């Protein structure tokens, strides 16, 4: 098992003929993901890499290829529209890699997605991977190994660093989810923790947070009340000065509730083992398992 994606994932790639979309579509295909179709308006009828049919709309792609998951690589200016389209076409899992979507667009996207019963991962995220089964997004497949650790993170390359630490020490992963660094995202820590808790293949969970907002504090409360599996956590931004954006639109400390110190304290109170640095992940997990 795994969460959100597995061998049954049938993927449509929105923006498959674009620079990023085509590169990563090939990467996902060579990883073994079932890429069943692509969408680029105006390029319907083409074949991507001689095998993947391209459609003008997501609705056609769903009808013709039974896609159940969509991944979005289109430019920021049209990314909100791409999410609306995927949700309207009945896609159950929408993964938006694109960064730079205006937050006000997301205030309209999220209720729409929710009303149609779809799950959105992202935006501004690296996507997901269930090692050995399916990869949706841009997490490098070669650093992952199949195994029992569930990873959920707000970051991109920091996630790779942690996965790399796990894999090189023989700790494989059930699923790794990058939920994205934006202030408004579709899937949060709690959704992933709940998924890992009921996933029989996940034995322990690694949660990687950042300064800004209170998602980590809420995740800590949820862990305390509803997660029986061991959880190890990290918060990036301990040295960040208050009131400044640290690249991610989400990583801004405003008021006291967003600081690393406060989040680390919330983790500890919830029984989450707190890493001081990425290299602590392996010893802490071994201690807890």
């Amino acid at each position, binding site marked *: 098992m795994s969460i959100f994606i597995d061998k049954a994932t049938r993927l449509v790639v929105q923006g498959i003929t674009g620079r*990023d979309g085509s590169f990563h579509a090939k990467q996902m295909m060579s990883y073994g993901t079932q890429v069943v179709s692509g969408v680029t308006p105006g390029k319907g009828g083409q074949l991507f890499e001689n095998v993947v049919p391209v459609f003008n709309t997501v609705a056609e792609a769903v009808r013709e290829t039974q896609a159940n998951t969509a991944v979005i690589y289109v430019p*920021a*200016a049209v990314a909100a529209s791409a999410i609306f389209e995927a949700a309207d076409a009945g896609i159950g899992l929408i993964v938006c890699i694109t*960064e*730079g*979507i*205006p*937050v*006000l667009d*997301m*205030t*309209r996207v*999220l*209720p729409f997605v929710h009303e149609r019963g779809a799950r959105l991962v992202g935006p501004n995220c*690296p996507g997901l991977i269930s090692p050995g089964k399916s990869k949706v997004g*841009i*997490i*490098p497949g070669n*650093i992952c190994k199949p195994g029992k650790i569930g990873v959920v*993170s*707000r*970051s*991109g*390359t*920091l*996630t*790779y*660093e942690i996965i*790399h630490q796990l894999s090189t020490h023989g700790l494989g992963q059930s699923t790794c989810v990058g939920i994205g*660094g934006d*202030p*408004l995202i579709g899937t949060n820590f709690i959704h992933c923790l709940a998924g890992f808790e009921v996933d029989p293949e996940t034995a322990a969970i690694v949660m*990687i947070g*950042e*300064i800004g*907002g*209170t*998602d980590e504090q809420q995740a800590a409360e949820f862990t305390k009340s509803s997660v029986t599996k061991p959880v190890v956590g*990290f918060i*990036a*931004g*301990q*040295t*960040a*000065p208050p009131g*400044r*954006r*640290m*690249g*991610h*639109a*989400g*990583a801004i400390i405003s*008021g006291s509730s967003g600081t*690393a110190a406060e989040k680390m304290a919330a983790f500890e109170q919830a029984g989450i083992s707190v890493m*001081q*640095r*990425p*290299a602590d992940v392996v010893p802490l997990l071994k201690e807890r398992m």
Partner: protein
Amino acid sequence: MNLHEYQARDILRRHGIPVPPGEVASTPQEARALAERFGGKVVVKAQVHAGGRGKAGGVKLAKTAAEAETHAKAILGMTIKGLTVQKVLIAPAAEIASESYVGIIVDRASQRPVLMVSPAGGIDIEEVAAKTPEKIHRLAIDPRYGLLQHQALTLGFKLYADVKQARAAADIMQKLYAAVYGVGASLAEINPLVTTPDGSVQALDAKIGIDDNELERRPDIAALRDVSAEAPAEVAAREAALTFIKLDGYVGCCVNGAGLAMATMDLVKYYGGEPANFLDIGGSSNPQKVVAALRIITSDPNVRSILFNIFGGITRGDDVANGIVQATREFPLKVPIVIRLTGTNEREGIAILERAGFTALSDMDEAVKQAVAKAKGKAA
């Protein structure tokens, strides 16, 4: 992107919100001319992207046009929180009967725009929130329907008992909500919203922050950016599509990805050093970005060693390596450099570096330890 008060007032005015008169001056002479035109007492207000202008002496009342000129002369060129004042707002001194607060921010938790109002205006709203939270009234707005009239009026009555004033405030709230979506604001505040002795309700001071992601599709708003009001290194970084924030330490950091960049700064501290900056070269790197990054880092005289921490995903190791080699040819480094390079095209990247006489590490902790040690070695 932050807007100046005078720019925010303009936006409110364009959205139909009553804003008392006021114009901006760049020289003491202009300030005097404006004060003469307005007649009577005027307020001279520094236009900088910093709070606490009043406490810093950046807001002064002038009884005459000559006094307005004197105040403008003192305030223009003044430094407030490291930023030089280039412009002053000249506005007729308003007679104020009451001060309230009205603001809209996008709230992460409810994932909606949230309207906040408080009868305790004129002071820092975070202070009100901390000391007298019961004086702040909040409403999460459903963006599908916008701010409905009865919702706005309910909050209007939290500010004013008089129905006319409550209606006026409600109208201002609905227009402020329209302005948020109209200009792509992540924050819009009227503080204070005042009543005058004749009973009218007006937006005396305004603060608007624009979501940077909105600027591409709003060239008119992007044109409001005041580069002279920002730190030069941060302007250079933005132009090179990098994210850079200067800090007070001495280990210059160049990392791909914001989360890893923050974790790298934290690790510098963990090993006893102090990071000189946050610098994220972003996802799809090209060598030119790396050159720009090195130029920015080396322009900081406090930097005693440079640390690269690259975990290639979309970013390719060979691109970063080429950038480092190219940069050091253009401007030889005066401080030691430590490079950690792993992930996509790491082998190609390391080969490029080695041909140019650099070495590369694969472990993050080892690289940070070395960078801190080298920074300290040079200091000793």
